[in-house]
């Protein structure tokens, strides 16, 4: 199973600051998904990136897929308390029947 490493593991920032979290693998991703999980809930999909070099924006969130498709980043501009949560990257492997595996997650806290 593909190993996904996320960094940092924890991040605590003030409202209005910018931040970037990372997801890396030693092997090439066929595609990558980013999920956000709030306390007491299951993860919810934010975005899927498929093409090397791809950039997708979701309001203040910018997702980038590395050119070599071995890494991805999530950048949040002007973070707000509502962005607090656990951010997870995930990939599925075609040769494993589309089995979906997750990284360890980045726990973000945005303080007002």
């Amino acid at each position, binding site marked *: 199973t593909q190993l996904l490493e996320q960094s940092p593991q924890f991040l605590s920032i003030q409202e209005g600051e910018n931040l970037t979290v990372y997801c890396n693998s030693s092997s090439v991703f066929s*595609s990558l998904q980013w999920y956000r999980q709030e306390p007491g809930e*299951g*993860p919810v999909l934010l975005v*899927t990136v498929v093409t090397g070099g791809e950039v997708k924006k979701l309001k203040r969130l910018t997702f980038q897929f590395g050119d070599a498709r071995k890494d991805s980043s999530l950048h949040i501009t002007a973070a707000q308390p509502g962005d607090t949560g656990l951010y997870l990257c995930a990939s599925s492997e075609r040769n494993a*029947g*589309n089995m*979906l595996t*997750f990284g360890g997650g980045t726990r973000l806290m945005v303080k007002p």
Partner: protein
Amino acid sequence: DVKVTQSSRYLVKRTGEKVFLECVQDMDHENMFWYRQDPGLGLRLIYFSYDVKMKEKGDIPEGYSVSREKKERFSLILESASTNQTSMYLCASSLSNMNTEAFFGQGTRLTVV
């Protein structure tokens, strides 16, 4: 509204008990997953099913088994619960296509005492 429903939000069981965690989805999805979530470890895949009666081991299948007799239902079974199986258990489902979204239940927090 699409839905993945887990039978219990909270469960307390004794060491050695047989435990059943049930998951039902109403989206006619082919794929269903069971994960456990522990602090700092993210979501670790226990078992995956891509069709009725079909299953694949994930990263941590030891101590668990699964059953998928109907497309909408995927059960996780702890044959003999142990304290190291205390965790949050999350069920998910998805279509069989690549890059498709996984939908999650709200989780079952299991405590084994």
